[in-house]
């Protein structure tokens, strides 16, 4: 037997109009942690779906050799039976069931179809201990955080006696602490139980920290496999991913800042579920034309709530305070009014709230500003076609045509469609909430360029991001938000990560 537990050879997978994978070869050694990196749309998830049988044998060409056997998986059950488990980015847990029930879902501890609950709970406790999940086995999934839910998924995979675990962006939704915990766990499982892991990730520093080997995909082809025994540099990986050396992660830019275009005064927002609780407490801010203003803060600091409450009261109850645009006070009671007054909000929740997945690219782009292509009562579909083609070309939205459904695009391209929609709405104030979340470096660079272009055209750009390097790299000025209050304001040129973090921590302690 060879040293490889898995060899995927010459895998080609085509979708109507697109070749997602072309002659991909991917080999994983037994007992290693192997990272799979590449830009969005490079084919990482497709490759893993081929491996796990989601795309059944026959829908692709090429060979999968797993533990020396030629495998032809027809569905997930086949691959699981062989010892391969996959954990998707969207967790597959049932929120109203307990941890134990979820761990053994589809794999119940049963005799003659009757579940043995004692056995189930006992094994669940053992598995939870193994993955370091410190909860009761009968806690409902909805009551634990995403980080712990991720651990339940891993326990679930282990319960199936899996030997090869595939994780698709396991840390994308986690904060730093939970991410570290998860990565440590993977290392431990790898070291002590010989679990082989394939990890898809955009977070290159994590990849470098834990992977033994790194395979880079680009445009559906294998570019290279790097040995990470001696840690390689991020730059080296990025070079493989984008096909060129990316010297600057942020585009160079000289801001052209004008007068104040938008102001938030004495803004107070209450929690819609608990109207006594103040979520945003007396916030005052101003934004100048052509300026990119960052809102820095920890998750849950209230930045999204602030943005949405401004955007036509899309969040919150008992909202008070004033909004001033171009020196005039405006009232925004619903989202329609906000859009009419030139405010746009790009949601952080792209997957569930950004796009209509079953509609095509052009229809999504025009949705927020149908008025612009409507004469009398009639929506001009020819004009829409032109708009769609225009934005597709301008932002290089990788797709077969403007008729492609938004749901079939990769994350970066979906985000470009969302941005196109809001740019087409011609706002004066653009609020971007985590605009590059889940997007790879190459596409991030393109998104940054779009953002800078918008600022240069004289718009007030407000950017919420949990990645401090991004805020420092792209904004001109920043506010620091903590616990619903503005706790600091500074020019980005004078800011650094340490200062921002210490301001946040001091403001928390001071209360």
């Amino acid at each position, binding site marked *: 037997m060879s040293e490889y537990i898995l060899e995927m050879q010459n895998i080609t997978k085509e979708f109507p109009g697109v070749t997602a994978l072309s002659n991909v070869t991917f080999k994983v050694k037994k007992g290693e942690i192997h990272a799979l990196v590449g830009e969005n749309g490079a084919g990482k998830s497709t490759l893993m779906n081929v491996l796990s049988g989601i795309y059944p044998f026959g829908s692709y060409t090429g060979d999968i050799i797993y533990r020396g056997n030629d495998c032809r998986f027809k569905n997930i059950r086949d691959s699981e039976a062989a010892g391969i488990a996959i954990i998707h980015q969207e967790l597959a847990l049932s929120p109203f069931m307990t941890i134990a029930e979820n761990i053994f879902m589809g794999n119940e501890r049963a005799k003659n179809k009757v579940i043995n609950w004692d056995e189930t709970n006992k094994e669940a406790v053992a598995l939870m201990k193994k993955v370091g999940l410190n909860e009761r086995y009968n806690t409902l999934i909805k009551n634990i955080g995403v980080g712990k839910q991720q651990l339940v998924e891993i326990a679930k995979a282990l319960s199936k006696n899996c030997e090869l675990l595939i994780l698709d962006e396991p840390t994308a939704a986690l904060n730093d602490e939970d991410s570290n915990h998860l990565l440590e766990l993977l290392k431990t499982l790898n070291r002590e139980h010989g679990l082989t892991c394939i990890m898809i990730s955009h977070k290159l520093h994590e990849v470098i920290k834990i992977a033994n080997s790194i395979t880079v995909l680009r445009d559906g082809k294998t570019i290279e496999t790097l040995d990470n025994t001696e840690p390689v540099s991020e730059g080296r990986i990025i070079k493989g991913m984008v096909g060129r050396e990316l010297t600057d992660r942020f585009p160079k830019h000289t801001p052209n800042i004008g007068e104040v275009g938008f102001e938030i005064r004495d803004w107070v927002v209450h929690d819609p579920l608990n109207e006594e609780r103040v979520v945003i407490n007396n916030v005052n801010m101003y934004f100048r034309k052509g300026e990119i203003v960052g809102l820095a803060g920890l998750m849950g600091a209230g930045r999204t709530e602030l943005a949405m409450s401004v955007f036509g009261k899309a969040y919150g109850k008992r909202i008070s305070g004033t909004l001033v645009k171009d020196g005039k006070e405006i009232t925004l009671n619903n989202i329609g009014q906000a859009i009419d007054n030139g405010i746009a909000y790009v*949601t952080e929740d792209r997957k*569930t709230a950004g*796009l*209509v997945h079953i*509609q095509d690219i052009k229809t999504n782009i025009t949705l927020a500003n149908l008025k612009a292509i409507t004469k009398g009562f009639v929506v001009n579909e020819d*004009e829409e076609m032109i708009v769609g083609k225009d934005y597709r070309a301008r932002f290089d939205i990788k797709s077969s045509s403007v008729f492609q459904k938004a749901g079939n695009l990769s994350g970066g391209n979906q985000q470009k469609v969302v941005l196109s929609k809001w740019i087409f709405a011609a706002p004066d104030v653009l609020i971007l909430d985590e605009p590059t979340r889940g997007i790879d470096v190459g596409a991030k660079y393109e998104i940054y360029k779009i953002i800078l272009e918008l600022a240069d055209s004289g718009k007030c750009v407000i950017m919420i991001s949990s990645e401090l390097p991004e805020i420092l790299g792209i904004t001109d000025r920043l506010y620091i938000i903590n616990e619903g209050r503005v706790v600091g304001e500074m020019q980005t040129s004078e800011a650094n990560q340490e200062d921002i973090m210490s301001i946040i921590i001091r403001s928390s302690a001071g209360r």
Partner: protein
Amino acid sequence: MNSVKEFVNRNIRQYGMIFALVVIMIFFGFMTGGKLIWPRNVSMLVKQNAYVLILAIGMMFCILTGGNVDLSVGSLVALVSAMSGLMATTLGLPSGLAILISIITGLLAGIWQGFWIAYVRVPPFITTLAGMLVFRGVNNIILNGQTLPLSDLYVTIGTGSVPDIAPNTVPDFLRIGDLLQLQNKPEYLNMTMLIVGLTLSVIYVLFVIFNRKSKQMRGYEVPSLSSVIVKVASFFIVINIFAYWLAMDDGLPIMLILLAALYAIYTFIATKTIPGRHIYAMGGNIKAAELSGVNTKKMMFLVYSNMGLLAGVAGVVTAGRLMASSPNVGANFELDAIGACFIGGASAYGGVGTIWGAVVGAFIMGVMNNGMSIMGLNVFLQSVAKGMVVLLAVAFDMYSKSKSRLG
């Protein structure tokens, strides 16, 4: 070549439905020894099934908002029909006024339900289930379990035809039936119907040509000339054959004018107006639609109010065809309408479906109803057959979708 393929791919569902309708017509035409396609029967088919079509148009919008349905329309048809009896017969109001009041009753009932659904957030299924009970009850209170005869105008709308403007003026060369010596008496042909058919089809052709030209001039993309010619020519032929067919019977049914008008208006609303686009968007992803400025509450309210309005129209039409208001009218109408939408390609999750689909679906339901009745099939078996067709139509839809995803 590629563009033709893309065009077919994009429209395959529509053509598939027409294909299914044709197959079902041939099947029942064969099973009934040709009776199904007799001019008299075709005319009947239109009048008899008008209610399904009218309700299906309204129901399509409900389904588009997110797979919601309106269970109350059958009862609402009954309520409107009872109002007609009350106004026109018991109170003796002029027929025109009675019809207006009846339709407004439908609209008010729709507004009532729209209010609970949109602004109180009672799920549509429950609101309309309640409506189903309430409206049926009110019908019985008004009619006190009795049947009331209706006046002439109702009957004309329900069963009448446009008078022949020039009887016996059809030139001999058009009398194909006589030329082929199909009957031993001279064939009757209704001149009005022939003229209307020809005029409409010519206007359509001119419109398409003009529209294409003007689009080209403004630099928009236009479909290839060959595909346009095929489409226009087949439409021209179908319309004129259909007109000829009806001309052999009573001519142009008033009901057909009403149906054509409703079809045109609602297709326009669904495809060419902002509210139409907003309904599709909210059915596709309600959160994304809301964040893009779609007033989803208002849309929900309008959709259910409109459903009430159309149920009002269907109520008047049904009362006219039966020539009476009765307590039992409208039973299971909601199921016919919902079935028509799903046969016509609506997605059970919302966001997908066309008015055209609802119309074809309604005709498939109608042909099946009518064909099986002519065959003298047992009513219970008819019900089994209809149920199976709805199930298989949606199953086919799911199957073809999963195929295309794996493609």
